[in-house]
């Protein structure tokens, strides 16, 4: 399968919900993304793998529209929900206030906040300030926030970070649901063994380039790990 992705159609001919085409991104003259082309259609979950500094976070930020590509283009057909390295939440507000605030901005009924808090298991903590939350609770709230308004595109950067086993199970369930409901998901994670079952394709990044992009097929975590090392070593 070519890294350029021109001949790649992971889920039939469905129209991609998000597409990066020949994307370059420079920071102070240094190329962090180099000619990356990647698409995700309805019902696809693309796993982004790569060592630290491979450009995964930058790619997700470019796809989200938080960074402009220096060259190339990004197209989105739908709203974006994102879980990033930073929680994107206000510490001084309670969990419920955070969700209600972002619900208002997205034109979503603020009542949805209560449903999402229950979904990520934070309903009993709804009236507590985020500043008092543990890392895992903040991550769960960030996931709930990303799901506000039921966005067509989900971009998840290390979403398992800080989550306990129960929360990982909840996240997998949410990802399965998102896939079933025709959402496009791109997820960057080093803890990919837990995610493998919901993934439809794997994109390998290294040095800002898309080194390979393949359907997951029947591969499990160990096989993807082997392939990851092979790709990084130039195989």
């Amino acid at each position, binding site marked *: 399968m070519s890294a350029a992705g021109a001949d790649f159609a992971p889920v039939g001919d469905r129209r991609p919900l998000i597409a990066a085409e020949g994307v370059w991104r420079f*920071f102070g003259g240094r190329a962090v993304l180099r000619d990356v082309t990647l698409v995700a259609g309805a019902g696809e979950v693309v796993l982004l793998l790569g060592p630290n500094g491979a450009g995964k976070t930058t790619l997700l930020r470019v796809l*989200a*529209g*938080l*960074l*402009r590509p220096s060259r190339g283009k990004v197209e989105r057909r739908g*709203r*974006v*929900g*994102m879980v*990033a390295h*930073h*929680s*994107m*939440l*206000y*510490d*001084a*507000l309670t969990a419920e*206030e955070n969700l209600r*605030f*972002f619900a*208002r*901005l*997205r*034109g979503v009924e603020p009542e949805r906040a209560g449903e999402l808090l229950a979904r990520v298991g934070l309903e009993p903590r709804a009236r507590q300030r985020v500043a008092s939350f543990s890392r895992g609770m903040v991550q769960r709230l960030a996931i709930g*926030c990303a799901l506000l308004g039921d966005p067509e595109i989900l971009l998840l950067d290390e979403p398992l970070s800080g989550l306990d086993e129960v929360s990982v199970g909840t996240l997998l369930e949410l990802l399965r649901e998102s896939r079933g409901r025709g959402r496009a998901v791109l997820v960057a994670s080093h803890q990919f063994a837990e995610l493998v079952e919901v993934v439809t394709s794997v994109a390998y990044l290294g040095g800002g380039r898309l080194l390979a992009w393949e359907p997951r097929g029947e591969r499990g975590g160990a096989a993807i790990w082997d392939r990851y090392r092979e790709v990084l070593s130039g195989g």
Partner: protein
Amino acid sequence: MGEGARAVWAIAAKDLAIEWRTKTAFVSALAFAVLVLAVLYFARDPTAVASLDVAPGALWVTFSFAAMLGLNRAFLLEQENRALDGVLLSGVPRPAVFLGKMLANLVFVGAVELVSVPLFILFYDVPLWHRVPELLGVTAMATLSFVAVGTLLSAMAVRTRFAELMLPLLLLPFLVPPVVGAVQVTARILAQRPLSEVAGWLKLLAAFDIVFLFLAIFLFEATLEE
């Protein structure tokens, strides 16, 4: 309510709710205002300088520098956990983000001014009550000027390494025209002189408001680029 107006209101209400809860900027601004008014009052020799001669300058030094403390905090709040990214991801139009932040800053600065005025009257014993509408007018015009520019520069400064130092450095040159204008107009108001004597300054304040409000809205998007 339209999408943009809803976002403006939501952002301003969120900022004010956080400030109400923490009160960090307000308490600092108020302490600063009391300090400046007191220092300038006690520095004056009442047998040599009339309080009316010092009062307008003292009032605007207090207002503008106290406001800076609040302006500094406006975008530091958004840097925490990169919350601004969440706002931008919501698809809110960029000008609505700016106007929401500016509205919160206006309310903040207005509140600081409101609490500072009784202290100002107490220290300087100036005849303020006769011309309240005029004084409110000039205060509104000058405050809008430096809050519009200050909100924009706060968004720029927050991305620099020494954000809290950078804002005053960037903002001070822009503060000169509105603050000098406001001092001139306030001096005439306190001296019971007609406003026609300072028509030129009033026009400058109005022009500054219009030009910098639109310029700030237009340039805000550029400050969001990394």
